[in-house]
């Protein structure tokens, strides 16, 4: 039963290459079933153990090659994506807060220059930020397909909290309006509200687009 021994040897090698893959057993089981079918078709052929091994590697791929495809699949997970976008959104807030405080403390000239430059292009920044939310929806759709819907909702709801929090803090004057001068014009506040309302539809449309690219 050289062919069965060769099959076992191939599967053992694959198992070894998959090392700590969480679905190692089920992956090996899939290839085991596949090789079973292949052997059922070819068992009358006389081959040496090496020839069988070579055939398996030609048809399925070398165990190392197969294992690397499965490892690649592990690189993007819902959890990693969720935390990545949460962190990216938080990074915008942290960077914005640091710049605001540094500007208020009035310590360095270059910070005043950065502050002036950024506050003179609020609409461009707003568009870029909305682009970030579009990117979030697109990436989730592209990576997780239909399953990404719940991840999108969860990521959106949690990521939008700092935005709403900041808006409320400014609205109820817990954060003095003067901190954000010259940003807080009525037009800009109205646009911020409109942009916040539009965030989810933007995310959703981008998700649909990304989902189409998931195949």
């Amino acid at each position, binding site marked *: 039963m050289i062919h069965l021994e060769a099959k076992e040897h191939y599967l053992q090698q694959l198992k070894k290459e998959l090392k700590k893959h969480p679905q190692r057993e089920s*992956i090996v089981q*899939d290839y085991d*079933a*596949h090789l079973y079918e292949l052997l*059922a078709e070819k068992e009358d052929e006389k081959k040496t153990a090496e020839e069988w091994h070579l055939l398996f590697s030609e048809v399925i791929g070398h165990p190392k090659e197969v294992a690397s*495809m499965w490892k690649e*699949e592990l690189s993007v997970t819902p959890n990693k994506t969720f935390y990545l976008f949460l962190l990216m959104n938080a990074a915008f807030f942290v960077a914005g807060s640091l710049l605001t405080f540094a500007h208020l403390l009035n310590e360095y000239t270059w910070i005043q220059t950065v502050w002036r430059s950024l506050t003179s292009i609020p609409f461009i920044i707003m568009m870029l930020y909305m682009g970030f939310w579009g990117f979030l929806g697109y990436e989730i759709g592209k990576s*997780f397909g*239909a399953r990404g819907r719940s991840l999108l909702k969860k990521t959106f709801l949690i990521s939008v909290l700092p935005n709403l929090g900041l808006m409320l803090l400014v609205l109820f004057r817990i954060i003095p309006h003067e901190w954000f001068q010259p940003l807080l014009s009525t037009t800009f506040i109205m646009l911020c509200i409109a942009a916040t309302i539009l965030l989810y539809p933007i995310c959703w449309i981008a998700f649909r687009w990304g989902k189409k690219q998931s195949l």
Partner: protein
Amino acid sequence: MFNRELLKGSTSLIVLQLLAERDMYGYELVKELEKRSDQHLQVKEGTLYPALHKLEKQEYIECYWQEQAKGPARKYYRIIEEGIQMLKEKTSEWEQFVQVINKVMRGTEHDPS
């Protein structure tokens, strides 16, 4: 055999199309694809399973085990609602793409020079 690059990206669409017709197991999918394409399209069988797994994770297909009278149980794949929807969208996109490419490739036929 065609250049593998031409087939790349179409594997999932082909798998969804085959599964839209009937539930199949991995080996059967490979053989069916070879048969239908007169052996022109051959998916490296090792790549099929990560593709199936991805489609399952994306909730376009699902799997179930079926006991066999002879041999081990087989893992069958079946397309689900989202997969059918996606197949429709991608098929229409594919048909448009083929039309455009054909039009471009046939362009010289109408060239009077």
